[in-house]
């Protein structure tokens, strides 16, 4: 019990400092990291060598994350400097002037599409500035894509989180995909309604509920079909493309108040969209064409970590760190897209003199603080993982829950995602533990793991690292605590939903066995 409470200190500290005292992410993460170090050494018997390896492991995990964030900001600056974001902002009212439909199309459909092909903060980094440009309040501009893309996280990023779940549990997609896709499909419908609630409150939600339900059923349903019958790694991507296609049609039914929006600059719009089209094409080429994937996959960075043990006997088996494939990394793909998009915009005459300097300076300014806080957050998470603090927390939660474990499982996944900033990492850290606990308690492993990954996916948007990205892209750096507080309400609702679905799923499979 004492160890459980001690292991909780770093997380509680960050929550209290960010949510309660409204500290920025950098200062809060310093406190959390130093607390994790102290607790690991003084209470969990972590030796100095263990900490040394933990820091290297954290360093590589951080690089994995920062490559994407740096490149995402660069891509955003390249498109923004060319005026693409403002052109999109000016063009959208021609499709629909209805604020709720704008939120559904861009903040839900487009953000989910970006989650499907990219992920890790890219949806909020790209979409939040567009929504701000459209006149959405900065807070809503961050919350809408964060909540809106949550359903697409597990099967998004071309399936990396789901792959992690299969790898750590040794189970196949045939066993795991159906319950996970059902949970996330239901979540898709609810996230649409929540996007409307964030945008226009209850009245707007009721007004546009039919559109949100239709789109949610299309996106969630197609994700389910592809995840169970086709290439599961493209399930979220194909689901969101279908949703976008349907949403353009629905926009005709909800055109909003008629007003003169000026003439549409069709050529400018096509040029503006070219940058995003380049991103999509390059992502698909690198991820889906085996020859290109193989060619770029040759340069890999990883380190061999020996078996580590604390003086309390918690052992981390010898293993290689997650390989970082530098040339076909999502960050590298964004970099290629940035360079090509710059060339296209430059040829089209969209840049003024000194654009390169403004793009680079703007990128460095934006990524400075997030880089420091992400490094510290990941370091904290890895120190907690290797010292056994994370496992102590999860075991404690499971013991306390007992027969209510199905209700708790999604929250354990969410805890992992909150700490590591990633659905993938949460599945790696907690997947096997959740499976063992489910087996011990006699529950359906597939249902519990669906709760784990759905909870982690939906809560990953709450991770301080992603909150930092969202806040900085929408010009709310330093107000991460406010953003997190707002996100907490909507994410909490989604987690309660997943908990109920997990409980019902476990009950149904138990009845089946009887």
């Amino acid at each position, binding site marked *: 019990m004492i160890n459980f409470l001690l292991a909780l200190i770093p997380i509680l500290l960050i929550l209290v400092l960010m949510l309660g005292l409204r500290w*920025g992410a*950098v*200062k809060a993460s*310093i406190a959390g*990291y*130093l607390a994790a*170090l102290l607790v690991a050494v003084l209470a969990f018997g972590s030796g*100095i*060598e263990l*900490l*040394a*390896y933990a*820091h*290297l492991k*954290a*360093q590589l995990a951080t690089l994995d994350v920062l490559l994407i964030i740096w490149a995402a900001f660069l891509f955003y600056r390249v498109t923004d400097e060319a005026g693409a974001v403002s052109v999109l902002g000016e063009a959208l009212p021609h499709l629909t002037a209805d604020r709720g439909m704008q939120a559904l199309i861009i903040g839900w459909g487009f953000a989910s599409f970006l989650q499907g092909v990219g992920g890790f903060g890219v949806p909020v980094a790209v979409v939040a500035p567009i929504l701000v440009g459209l006149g959405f309040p900065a807070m809503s501009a961050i919350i809408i894509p964060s909540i809106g893309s949550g359903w697409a996280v597990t099967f998004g990023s071309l399936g990396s989180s789901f792959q992690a779940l299969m790898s750590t549990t040794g189970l196949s997609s045939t066993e795991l995909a159906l319950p996970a896709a059902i949970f996330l499909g239901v979540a898709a419908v609810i996230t649409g309604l929540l996007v409307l609630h964030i945008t226009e409150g209850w009245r707007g939600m009721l007004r546009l509920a039919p559109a949100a339900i239709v789109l949610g059923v299309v996106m969630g349903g197609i994700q389910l079909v592809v995840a169970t019958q086709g290439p599961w790694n493209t399930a979220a991507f194909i689901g969101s493309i279908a949703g976008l296609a349907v949403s353009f049609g629905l926009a005709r039914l909800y055109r909003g108040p008629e007003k003169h929006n000026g003439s549409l600059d069709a050529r400018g719009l096509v040029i503006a969209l070219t940058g995003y089209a380049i991103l999509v094409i390059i992502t698909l080429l690198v991820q889906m064409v085996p020859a290109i994937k193989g060619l770029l996959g040759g340069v890999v960075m990883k*380190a061999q970590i020996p078996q580590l043990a604390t003086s309390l006997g918690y052992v981390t088996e010898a293993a290689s760190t997650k390989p970082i494939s530098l040339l076909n990394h999502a960050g590298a793909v964004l970099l290629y897209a940035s360079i090509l998009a710059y060339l296209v915009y430059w040829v089209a005459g969209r840049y003024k003199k000194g654009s390169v300097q403004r793009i680079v300076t703007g990128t460095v300014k934006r990524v*400075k603080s997030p*880089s*420091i806080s992400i*490094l*510290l957050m990941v370091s904290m998470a890895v120190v907690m993982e290797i010292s056994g603090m994370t496992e102590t927390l999860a075991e404690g939660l499971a013991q306390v829950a007992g027969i209510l474990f199905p209700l708790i499982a999604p929250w354990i996944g969410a805890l992992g995602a909150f700490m590591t900033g990633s659905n993938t990492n949460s599945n790696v850290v907690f997947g096997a533990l959740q499976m063992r606990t489910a087996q011990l308690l006699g529950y359906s492993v597939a249902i519990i793991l669906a709760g784990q990954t759905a909870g982690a996916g939906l809560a990953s948007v709450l991770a301080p690292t992603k909150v930092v990205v969202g806040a900085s892209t929408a010009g709310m750096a330093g107000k991460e605590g406010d953003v997190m507080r707002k996100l907490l309400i909507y994410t909490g609702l989604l987690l309660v939903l997943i908990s109920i679905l997990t409980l019902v799923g476990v009950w149904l499979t138990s009845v089946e066995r009887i």
Partner: protein
Amino acid sequence: MRKLVKWLQENSFEANLLALLLMAVPPVLLYFAARQGALGWIYALLGLVILGNILVLFVR
């Protein structure tokens, strides 16, 4: 001490960069120090990482 803090706050970009380097560079060296079992180096390098943290606190 007050002068140092003032200088750090006036030169926050350089101070942040230094802090980031102090937090980012030692872990690579820590890996090699741990493989060699060089405890003295590990303590010194971990100290640098923590120094980087403290520096950030002073700058902000």
